[in-house]
């Protein structure tokens, strides 16, 4: 099964809608709760990052019997120093983003912890693509 969603820049009213929709789908498919939780936490963090730090983008989710592959691709500033960005506590979140409850610098580490495979392709001035895989078996 394949699902596609759009992410809008700076739209914190709707941010998280895609992850919420994926959560419902996984529940309907009868995926076990522990795998649902780590899948949607990883996806949600990536979705919020695309809203908060980039200029929006797309989410593609593929689900089959053995794994869930999620690709969050944004147009945005890119991440100049990925090692730094992966560290717990590192954040460049704006005041507006902090007001929404984000900016702890925990999102990328959370994604790493919750997914089985994580690939981040990023280019300064172009954008960032985060590919996360969760194995169901």
């Amino acid at each position, binding site marked *: 099964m394949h699902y596609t969603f759009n992410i809008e820049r700076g739209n*914190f*009213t709707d*941010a*998280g809608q895609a*992850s*919420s929709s994926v*959560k419902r789908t996984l529940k309907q498919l009868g995926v076990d*709760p522990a795998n649902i*939780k780590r899948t*949607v*936490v990883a996806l*949600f*963090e990536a979705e*919020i990052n695309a809203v908060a730090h980039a200029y929006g983008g797309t989410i593609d989710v593929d689900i089959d019997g053995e794994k869930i592959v999620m690709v969050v691709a944004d147009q945005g500033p890119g991440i100049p120093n990925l090692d730094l960005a992966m560290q717990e506590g590192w954040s460049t979140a704006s005041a507006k983003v902090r007001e*929404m*409850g*984000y*900016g*702890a*610098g*925990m*999102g990328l580490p*959370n994604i790493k*912890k919750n997914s089985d495979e994580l690939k981040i392709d990023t280019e300064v001035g172009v954008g960032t693509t985060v590919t996360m895989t969760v194995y169901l078996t």
Partner: protein
Amino acid sequence: MKVKEIAKLVDGEIVGAPVDETYEVKKAFASDLMSDVLRFHMDDTVLITGLCNNQTMRTSEMADLRVVLIGRDKQPDEDMLELAEDADITIIKSKYSIFKLSGILYAAGLEPLY
């Protein structure tokens, strides 16, 4: 501790999804930082927060939270209440500060998450 007992202890008002009378809350976690909330297992846990917006509900939904206690007299708007109902999350809103809410619930026997 039942959801209604918590509401009574903090002089709170219940909004959002209807209370599940069978749900037993055992632990509490206080945070305004949503990515911190997503780091932990929130089974049988009430989130105590002063952050009152759509993202509080989205994060709670992802974290599998069922009860959120909102302090400092913050008022959830219609949009947020709708999200709470969709995600089956009961909101207790209280005038008390986060420190006071935490103290009351700790004294009443809720366990810290860690």
